[in-house]
């Protein structure tokens, strides 16, 4: 393999790690050189995260060794990893929204003096920012920053703490296309100064664009390695997924279909809302969802997606305009009435938004079913169970035990319970808010399949997502939300990711606040 330096900066040899019945890492070898971007590719559960957590000292391997500059080292904790100049940018940023950029960075400096000298830290932030294209306003509170800027702060934190080996755990997941470009320019600048970058992802195109070397993992093993320019999408897909080749199949599924003059299920006419705190006010939304179509909403986080979902469900009231549901003015309907009328909600994080962790699965199944199972002052549990069992069967989900608290279920099972509940009463409208975020590739695929099936069965679907690939695959129409307003509308196949990306960020230029 070609590399800019003779000896690797990091060498992982024969690392294995087992969690219960799962062999997360199975005798994995990996080397990282200074001045390279090394992509670690694999589907969820392939062992990429385990390997990076071992390198960063979060997890201890069952066997195997790590060599830094040719010397065997023990990395027992993140603190030790940092002392070996290894740094990691997590998917969930380690930032405190209330503190300024400067304070967030200072918190992680090992050589911070007892009395803070903000100018000195600010100067270093500025220097590194200029050098690597990571300019942010050091005095802005982090809560005001975009996701892309927050990521810059994370990278600056590592650089100021003198890390030389940088691990990025799916860094592009939450970024808009132009922010991804900016990140890759940062990669290039870092590479030029001899930093080693381990880039964990499952997005193939990005890997082919920016990686000098690619290592593919599957089921805990390294199944292939390529130099830059040696791999194409087809080869990588086959390696990642074995012989299954699911990706190609799902692409064709949503054939071009557009309901001819179907009646609208939901309409927003000039809908606006007020906002407090860090919320985004909605401004004059014109939106219509017909039976049998999936309408996608793209936007960078904080563009008003959550507020839009809340508005439709009735959690948020209109300050102007009106909301129509199946031809009736629903502007002032209660949440209960919206739900009883046939609105279902598939949220991003069920435990936060759609389930009560301490209550049993059965009790959770009854939530939001309104008056359907009321019998006198009691609830007709057996009727509820019968309906829910049917729903589980129709969805081909296994029926979970109903007595334990729902919080004890695994993430995937929990999501299934919520979906079964939401689908139980043949919803006319399904509002899906980042429904596949945090799901592994297969669960995400089955959820998408389910939404398409509901669409084919005559439901209207509103799919709010930040994943442009998902939107491209799923939607019949695509709307773009920016700053609480709809700034673009496209029919299926009639849009370019770059164009949507620019609309998503509200400008043609990469603006750095």
């Amino acid at each position, binding site marked *: 393999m070609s590399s800019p330096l003779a000896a690797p900066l990091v060498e992982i040899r024969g690392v294995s790690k087992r969690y219960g019945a799962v062999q997360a890492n199975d005798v994995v070898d990996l080397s990282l050189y200074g001045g390279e971007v090394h992509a670690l590719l694999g589907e969820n559960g392939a062992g990429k995260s385990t390997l990076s957590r071992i390198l960063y000292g979060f997890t201890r391997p069952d066997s195997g060794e790590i060599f830094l500059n040719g010397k065997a080292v023990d990395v027992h904790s993140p603190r030790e990893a940092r002392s070996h100049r290894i740094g990691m940018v997590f998917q969930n940023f380690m930032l*405190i929204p209330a503190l300024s950029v400067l304070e967030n960075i200072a918190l992680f400096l090992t050589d911070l003096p007892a009395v803070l000298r903000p100018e000195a830290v600010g100067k270093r932030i500025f220097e590194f920012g200029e050098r690597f294209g990571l300019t942010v306003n050091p005095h802005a509170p982090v809560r005001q920053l975009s996701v892309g800027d927050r990521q810059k702060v994370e990278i600056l934190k590592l650089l100021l703490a003198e890390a030389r080996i940088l691990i990025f755990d799916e860094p592009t997941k939450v970024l808009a296309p132009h922010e991804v470009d900016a990140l890759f320019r940062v990669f290039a600048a870092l590479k030029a100064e001899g930093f080693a970058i381990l880039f964990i992802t499952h997005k193939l195109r990005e890997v082919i664009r920016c990686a000098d070397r690619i290592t593919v993992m599957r089921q805990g093993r390294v199944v292939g390695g390529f130099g830059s320019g040696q791999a194409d999408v087809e080869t990588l897909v086959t390696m990642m997924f074995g012989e299954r080749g699911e990706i190609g199949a799902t692409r064709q599924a949503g054939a071009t279909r557009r309901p001819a003059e179907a009646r609208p299920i939901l309409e927003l006419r000039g809908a606006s809302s007020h906002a407090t*705190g860090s919320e985004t006010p909605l401004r004059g939304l014109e939106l219509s969802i017909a039976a049998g179509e999936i309408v996608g909403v793209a936007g960078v986080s904080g563009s008003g997606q959550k507020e839009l979902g809340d508005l439709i469900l009735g959690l948020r009231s209109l300050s102007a305009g009106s909301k129509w549901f199946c031809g009736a003015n629903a502007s002032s309907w209660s949440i209960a009435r919206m739900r009883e009328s046939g609105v279902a909600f598939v949220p991003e994080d069920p435990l936060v938004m759609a389930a009560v962790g301490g209550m049993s699965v059965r009790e959770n199944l009854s939530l939001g079913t309104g008056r359907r199972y009321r019998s006198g002052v009691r609830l007709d549990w057996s009727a509820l169970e019968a309906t829910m069992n049917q729903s589980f069967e129709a969805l081909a989900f296994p029926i979970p035990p109903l007595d334990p608290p729902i919080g004890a279920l695994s993430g995937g099972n929990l999501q299934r319970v919520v979906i079964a509940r939401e689908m139980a009463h043949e919803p006319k409208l399904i509002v899906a808010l980042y429904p596949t975020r945090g799901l592994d590739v297969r669960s995400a695929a089955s959820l998408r399949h389910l939404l398409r099936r509901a669409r084919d069965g005559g439901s209207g679907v509103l799919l709010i997502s930040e994943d442009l690939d998902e939107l491209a695959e799923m939607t019949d129409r695509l709307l773009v939300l920016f700053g609480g307003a709809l700034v673009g509308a496209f029919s299926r196949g009639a849009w370019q990711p770059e164009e949507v990306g620019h609309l998503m960020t509200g400008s043609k230029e990469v603006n750095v606040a």
Partner: protein
Amino acid sequence: MTTPLILGLLAGAILSGTSLLYATLGETIAERSGIVNLGLEGILLIGASVGFSVTAASGNAWLGLFAAGMAGGLANLLFGWLVVTRKANQLASGLAMMFFGFGASALIGARYVGAVIVGLPKWRPSWLAGFRWVKATTLFNYDLLTWVAIPVAVLVWWALFRTRWGLGVRAVGESPAVAFAAGRNPAVLQYQALSCGGVLGGLAGAHLSLSLTLTWSEYMTAGRGFIVIALVIFSKWNPLRAIAAALLFGGAESLQLQMQARGSLISPFLLDMSPYILTLIILVAWGGSRRLAAPAGLGRTFYGSE
């Protein structure tokens, strides 16, 4: 109103505002680290009774003041053991601490009810005593705690916002998990913040018995600890704003006393209520804007980062 009345009001505001300010500063430090101590009332009582008892027994008010600070610090460390180490619910533990303070202070002070002490010495710079209207009031005739109250507030602000320690405390109060990831020890920082807060609370209590009333009576704090919890919110967890907040409430207390002294026609019961009514008004007015200012981790228990 006449000039003497206004000056009298101001003098009274500063006098009763002093203990409010120390207590507010102490609670601010604790809450910045993510811990709300509803038992502050108990800490104030312990400070007042220990300060008074030690002064009465030893005849030295400075010794009493020192003992009160120590007692406050120790009481808060006990509270810290409950909520940091034992991870008990902060609200329930705080209320328990309050009742503990009621009982402990009554026990400590029982022998000294009605005792006569020489309180903290007061002095007024001679160049200020020259003014006719100053001479007529207690204005600028203060003890050490009052004289250094505002510098202490500035010092607390500086410690929280300009030192490595303060950054750690604020980070723990916002997100213990991030602070932990940054290599700080959340428990240690919370204990440190609580002991500083306890010392300030003890001093605040001692100022009541050693300077303001010069007596000890059971439950003499009369809800000041709870007013202070509202003051912390009112001052948005900022030690500098706390100065103004304490003066405002000190003023309300002072106004009420002046009105009663002058035989106002308003019911004395209603006048007694005025600081608490002001507290309610402020909580109502401040209700909505609380979200951005409060430390995000306030009142939450950190179970470590698994």
